[in-house]
């Protein structure tokens, strides 16, 4: 997958870190110090459909040009997560018990076009 740059327009992964201290949650969340709430953004014209991230080879680029010239190129596909991992949290619950849990699929590692 591709990480978004300043001027990315095509499908890519936008990094976004939530610092628990910044939102005042550091008193009840023991670990970690923050949450990587990355998300997917950008265009997915049809000729990029089904390819995670940008074209990776000359052959793919040529194939893309052919697809782009086709009549159906007007339809877009969607920029979605292609790899995700759990968020492990250690926190105090309302009764000050210590709870450890792994929340599945909370962190986006890469994005691609459907």
């Amino acid at each position, binding site marked *: 997958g591709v990480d978004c740059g300043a001027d990315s327009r095509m499908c890519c992964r936008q990094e*976004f870190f*939530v610092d628990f201290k910044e939102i005042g949650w550091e*008193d009840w969340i023991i670990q970690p110090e923050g949450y990587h709430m990355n998300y997917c953004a*950008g265009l997915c014209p049809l000729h990029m459909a089904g390819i995670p991230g940008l074209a990776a080879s000359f052959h793919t680029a040529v194939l893309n040009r052919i697809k782009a010239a086709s009549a159906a190129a007007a339809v877009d596909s969607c920029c979605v997560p292609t790899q995700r991992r759990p968020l492990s949290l250690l926190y*105090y619950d*309302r009764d000050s*018990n210590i709870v450890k849990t*792994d929340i599945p699929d909370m962190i986006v590692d890469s994005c691609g076009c459907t």
Partner: protein
Amino acid sequence: GAKAAWCPACGVASLAPGAQRDALLALAKQSILAKLRLPGRPGVPQPPSRAALRSALRRMRAQRSDTPGMLRDGPGLQEYEVLSFAEAGSSTSRSVHLHFRFSQEVAGSTEIQQATLYLFWASPGRGAQPVTVRLLRQDPNMTVASETRLEVQRPGWTTLDIGAAVRSLFGETPRLTVELEVPEDWGSPLPPDHSDSHWPFVVAQARARTRHRVQRR
């Protein structure tokens, strides 16, 4: 400016950077609380003493190495491990009530896979000493849900598997009351105060309930 102020993928006016950041932070909070099944962030916690916490984590690690594979990974279901320190309740010269409070969110949406009670005996009398551990229901008569008799031979930690009793009790309420009864000449079965590193605690492993699928023809 040169770059159109619109979202390239959805074609609507994009948020101003500050507003976008606030929206994303709000989304992060909402997403984490929803996954933890919490209506809002918990109040400021009363953390356990460092000594008690360090001692409990050490015991848990020792117990885990003694019984590997205690909790096999479930099929992608969210799993919880809860460490709960006792609150001292009513007591007599030879017995004491210990209260453990689990959150409704965890107890209500998970299945308890394993629960272990950790008790420390500072100075039992000579020879094998009979100790009775009862799990009581939360009804007005505090009826006994389960009773176990231990033979304490020497000072140290004792662990008791209370998984089955906790599963049956959690059906009513996520509260647990344990009654400890020791020989008359022992004195109080509890350490002198809550910050002691030998304070009793319970460790429970729980797994999110599988979503029931109803097949209809």
